[in-house]
């Protein structure tokens, strides 16, 4: 069996075993529940906002009021929220006119995905090293094939989780709002796919760090600390934009954190999304490879 076939075999096995693990099951269910609850809560809030808007603008009450429609874009507070969320005028322009439910879902998955990744995947390599189960594979394939196969298997697992949460969110919209269309489901799937691409560098980071320890708990803590570090750098870069001196270090560091490049994935243009995807995949492979380098020759 060549290395590529071994890679596929390890990926497939990892996916099947990961999806059956108790930890993954619990976290996936919690994630789905969080997606459903947040969607439900957000629909309540937006319905109120829309009704207030109709009263304020003295618009004629139609059947559409309170269904959370694109009317919301007429609301200044809503526009302010979206501007704040998007941080960038180009991104904001691309978002204008999109269905609010779609945007809630997008915000939700982009916000929660890094944590989901760390909680589900950070322990997968360290647990295998700690329990010794890697020893059953280490003489059957190369360590690189094993590491990369585990990474791909986990990427598949995260993809499945995002799709499931997308379906959950769509069902909530279908129940709560009249006039929910199939187009919304398609758009939710597209956002799931974008969030999946966004999850990949965090997965690379979590699994790269997972190579460094034999304890799943330590790997999870390392993962949480590292994603927190990423957000601190990203926030630091945002607030020190154009600064000189030591503060300019944030701008350099921000280049190697996923958060900086995420808004490429929010754009409409395929070129921007492709640029974002390239950044994400490159960062993921760099993080993973750095972890692998430490693991490559260590005792198992």
């Amino acid at each position, binding site marked *: 069996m060549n290395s590529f076939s071994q890679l596929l075999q390890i990926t497939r096995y990892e996916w099947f075993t990961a999806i059956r693990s108790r930890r993954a099951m619990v976290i996936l269910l919690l994630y789905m529940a969080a997606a459903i609850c947040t969607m439900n809560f957000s629909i309540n809030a937006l319905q109120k906002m829309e009704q207030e808007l109709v009263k304020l603008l003295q618009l004629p009450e139609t059947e559409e009021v309170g269904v959370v429609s694109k009317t919301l874009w007429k609301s200044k507070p809503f526009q302010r929220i979206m501007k704040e969320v998007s941080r960038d005028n180009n991104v904001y322009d691309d978002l204008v006119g999109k269905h609010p439910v779609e945007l809630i879902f997008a915000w939700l998955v982009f916000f929660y995905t890094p944590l989901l990744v760390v909680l589900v995947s950070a322990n997968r390599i360290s647990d295998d090293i700690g329990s*010794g189960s890697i020893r*059953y594979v280490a*003489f059957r394939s190369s360590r690189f*094939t094993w590491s990369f196969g585990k990474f791909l298997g986990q990427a598949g697992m995260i993809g499945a989780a995002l799709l499931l949460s997308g379906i959950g969110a769509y069902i909530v919209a279908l129940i709560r709002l009249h006039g929910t269309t199939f187009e919304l489901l398609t758009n939710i799937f597209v956002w799931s796919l974008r969030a999946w691409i966004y999850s990949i560098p965090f997965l690379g980071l979590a699994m790269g760090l997972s190579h460094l320890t034999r304890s799943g708990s330590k790997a999870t803590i390392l993962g949480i600390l590292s994603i927190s570090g990423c957000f601190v750098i990203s926030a630091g870069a945002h607030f020190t934009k154009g600064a000189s001196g030591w503060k300019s270090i944030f701008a350099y560091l921000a280049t190697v954190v996923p958060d900086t490049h995420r808004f490429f994935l929010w754009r409409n243009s395929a070129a921007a999304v492709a640029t974002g995807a390239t950044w994400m995949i490159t960062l993921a492979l760099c993080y993973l490879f750095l972890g692998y380098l430490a693991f490559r020759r260590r005792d198992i």
Partner: protein
Amino acid sequence: MTNAVTTTDLVKKYGSTRALNGLTISIPNYAVTGLVGANGAGKTTWMMSVAGFLRTNSGQINLLNSGPFKPEIHCGRISILPQDSALPEESYPLETLVHYARLQGLGKSAALKTAKDILTEVHLADRMSSTIRSLSHGMRKRVMIAQCFIGFPELILLDEPLSGLDPKEVANMRNFILKRGKAQTIVISSHNLNDIELLCDYVAFFKQGKSASLTTVAEITNKSGLLTYALTGSPGSMKALGALLPECTFTLNQRSNELSCLFKPSLMPAAKLNATLIPHLLQSTEIITITSGATLENQIMSEF
């Protein structure tokens, strides 16, 4: 005799401790070799180093005449039952073994057939699709042993293979290993010297990771030069025995009434010895059993 593994001046350090301290040993091909030694003698470390799990500090490993372990060369040619290593808890025995077989290069249907056959051989046909988590310790151990024999590897390293199995399964596993030992090179590390004696053709003594002498089991137990007679009573005067067979040396364990007779088969064949000695003994007592050689355990314990 060609060797399956040769290690020369192997050194493995854990901090300031030298688990292997210049170990040189050759493991013969197509035989079952037992590794024997006190705790910390380096048996497990040696196995793990050979399988490529540990990075040695110095020395050479020649595995199947193709240098140290490299996945691209040795994948599917060696296997190991590592000590204290768990199988993935959420997986199923059949699924796991098929996975390992596929990694070793077996096709889909061949992998499935091999995995099913081997699980049946280790008496787990009815638990193929239970999760590993739900299996008992002994059952997991059998799955671990089974994975070693998937795809017919040339060299199999087994670290404490029979510990934790019930007596019936120990007997089954012994037969299983003995059957395979004729066609594959098997190395067994065990503290159970009875297992080593029953299973192995050769024994390697590990001493503080420094030296490992390889000897045949028959040589150690002196199968051809020692007879022990279990008697119901005293065999009479030892002087009389010495006079009867001056080429032999007799020792009597008075507590168990066991008479040991050390002899040189070239000077006194066992048949001739028995023809002279047995009638003499029967004049004063009865003989319960006659066994040839000493047990490996006795010999090794006397060495320690």
